[in-house]
């Protein structure tokens, strides 16, 4: 545990000085990339919470990411236009208002979708989460007021009190703080009474029922919490990109989040950070190398799933085992 804490502290220090180093060495793109990694780490960790700890393979997690994204966009739109939404909800560009709103709206959406989707399991659950996310994608695309397929531009970003978050470095630190707080919160949840029950449901739902646990309610609660986490990440993304786009709800985004979770190792606490980093770095460099980067990404992904027993986690486990058994 102590080792853990030292490692975490060192990582936070490294991330804190990263913008200074980037500026000194002229690698300014690094700040943007790291910001995106941290945002996706939050989204992937929230997916990992239901997938790795709760055993729910959701293929529609981008829905909540996109809802968080749009809440910021829509609130900013009404703030900029000066016209309240539906005539009574005023817009806002204050991060301390937009972020919690995004989290709540995403949580509510997760409640509605989850309460239906969790009536099924296995392959139906995968298909249904995918389909509901796609439905929301079409919904947002059809909102011509908010740009339709083009999305909403958040020209002025958001403000944190008087601090404008148009400044990428300021936004970087906001993202860092939110991520640290989010992971601290997630740590509590995973080790709480609820987290323990959820883990039990993943391992053996029938047994948990036999102990008097109605798994549906617990799974739904977990699903809502995960939706809120993704909503948080989506909201940060809108502020960071100064843009809310229907692409954030597209089903390929759900696929990308799943890939991040797998790359980092399903059910490992810090795995999603590594997974998000691995995916985004890979994507960035492949895209710089060839316009057909998706082909390379597909081949790599296929290789990881097929070449290892049990996906990437199996890969890491087998490497770890090899390292351990190697003669010193």
């Amino acid at each position, binding site marked *: 545990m102590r080792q853990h804490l030292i490692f975490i502290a060192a990582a936070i220090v490294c991330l804190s000085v990263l913008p200074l180093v980037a500026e000194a060495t002229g690698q300014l793109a690094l700040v943007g990339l790291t910001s995106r990694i941290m945002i996706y780490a939050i989204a992937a960790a929230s997916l990992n919470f239901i997938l790795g700890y709760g055993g729910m393979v959701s293929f529609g997690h981008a829905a909540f990411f996109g809802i968080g994204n749009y809440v910021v966009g829509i609130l900013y739109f009404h703030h900029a236009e000066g016209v309240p939404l539906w005539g009574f909800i005023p817009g806002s560009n204050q991060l301390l208002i937009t972020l919690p709103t995004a989290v709540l709206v995403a949580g509510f959406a997760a409640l509605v979708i989850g309460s239906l989707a969790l009536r099924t399991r296995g392959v139906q659950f995968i298909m249904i989460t995918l389909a509901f996310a796609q439905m929301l994608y079409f919904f947002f695309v059809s909102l011509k007021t908010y740009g339709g397929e083009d999305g909403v531009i958040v020209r002025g970003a958001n403000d944190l009190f008087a601090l404008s978050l148009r400044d990428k470095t300021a936004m970087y630190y906001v993202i860092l703080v939110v991520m640290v707080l989010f992971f601290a919160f997630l740590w509590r949840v995973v080790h709480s*009474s609820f987290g323990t029950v959820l883990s039990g449901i993943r391992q053996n739902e029938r047994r948990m029922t036999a102990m*008097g646990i109605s798994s549906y309610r617990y799974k739904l609660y977990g699903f809502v919490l995960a939706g809120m986490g993704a909503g948080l990440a989506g909201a940060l993304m809108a502020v960071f990109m100064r843009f809310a786009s229907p692409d954030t709800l597209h089903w390929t985004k759900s696929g990308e989040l799943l890939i991040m979770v797998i790359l980092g190792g399903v059910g490992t606490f810090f795995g999603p950070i590594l997974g998000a980093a691995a995916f985004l770095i890979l994507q960035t460099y492949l895209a710089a190398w060839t316009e057909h980067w998706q082909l390379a990404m597909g081949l790599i992904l296929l290789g990881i799933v097929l070449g290892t027993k049990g996906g990437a986690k199996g890969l890491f486990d087998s490497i770890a085992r090899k390292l351990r058994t190697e003669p010193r």
Partner: protein
Amino acid sequence: MNTILAIDDLVKRFAGLTATDHVSLNVATGHIHALIGPNGAGKSTLINLLCGELIPNEGRITLLGEDITACPAAERMKRGLARTFQITNLLNDFTVQQNISLAVQARQGNNFRILDTARGRVSILTEVDELLAASRLEPRRDVVAGNLSSGERKQLELMMALAGRPKLLLLDEPMAGLGRLESQQMIETLRGLRGKVSMLLIEHDMEAVYALADRISVLVYGRVILTGTADDIRASDEVRDAYLGLEDELC
């Protein structure tokens, strides 16, 4: 004598097959009531009906005077039912200690709390320590359940069921897959529970049944053909014809 579980005229049909055919059965409070019958007699179906994993087509199940026929499975457990599985069903990534903790935690409630720490719930830990201290699994407390022997798994099953402090325990073949010594130990353990909890015991091992049961019911082709004491069962021609004739090795 008080009845803890009353089964009235229970019917369960699967496409074309009546697995439970107008079964009526009463389990008296404090009794160990055994249910025997050849393979395919519908014993597992009956236990799944009692647990709520299956819903009957007709009939009524009454636990402690309350109708639970339409009650969801988890709710029945809260009302005093507990079960063990024929093929052990454990949380295989958790240790023995964690398995029992979660069973105690499930009974104690407060499980929607997300900002407490499960390991910080002292009342659970003390109870688990007490349960473990009184069991043969104490030396194995930190072993992951997936790595236990089949005998140990059966014991853990039973401990987890008991951790729910049930009034009525449904035991689905607790002796199945156990060696001779382990069977003897299991019989001892169950005998030690007599009077503390009522039991409905489904079992093939007739030695265990005769050693434990106050009453025995015989299930053949989904029907209860006889309920009585061990002597009644031994003396019944009907049982011999319908049941023992089918499985000579059980004589």
